[in-house]
């Protein structure tokens, strides 16, 4: 019974991975691609690792896959945040049909001396 639930979770996870990678290819902008691919692939890989832990119920594989899932859950949004900040700082423009840019408004309101002292 747990094998069946595990294989269903693995299937859902791989479907989320494929949708995230299609988003990585099809979206028009760095920030849209980051949004789609990071969220979908993180959730899909966590589903896949929980499914692996359910299929191999005992032993080292299940424990290590749970540890790996927790690690990916912590580190993947951190990496996405760092990439978005780096992309904005390196001067990549938004897509031409984007309507809101809160980060640009916030950083343009900062006093000039703060950015000159860096």
């Amino acid at each position: 019974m747990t094998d069946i639930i595990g294989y269903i979770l693995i299937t859902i996870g791989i479907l989320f991975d494929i949708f995230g990678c299609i988003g990585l290819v099809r979206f028009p902008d760095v920030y849209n691609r980051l949004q789609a691919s990071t969220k979908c692939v993180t959730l899909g890989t966590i589903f896949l690792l929980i499914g692996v832990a359910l299929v191999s119920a005992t032993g080292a594989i299940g424990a290590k896959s749970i540890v790996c899932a927790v690690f990916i859950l912590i580190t993947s949004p951190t990496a996405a945040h760092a990439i978005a900040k780096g992309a904005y700082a390196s001067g990549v423009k938004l897509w031409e049909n984007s309507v809101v840019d809160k980060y640009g408004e916030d950083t343009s309101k900062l006093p000039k001396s703060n950015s000159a002292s860096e």
Partner: protein
Amino acid sequence: MELIFYFGLFVCCFLCMYRIGRGPSAPDRTVAIDILGIVIVGFCALLGIETGKDFYMNIALAWALLSFIGTIALAKFLEGKDFDD
């Protein structure tokens, strides 16, 4: 059954490699490298339950760590700062 899983993850890897080769700017390639690392962690987990050997999960953990550190280093490089800021 396992062949379908492997085929799905191969499709993910090839889509990421398309974006690495095609991507118009450097952050596109950084995003694709990050995603490719996470997909390969899932690949190692599937190989672990098929063969029954647990060193594949060691490879997956090490790959996740190295992918995270490499992505952070590339993001710092894109931002134009040193590593200790």
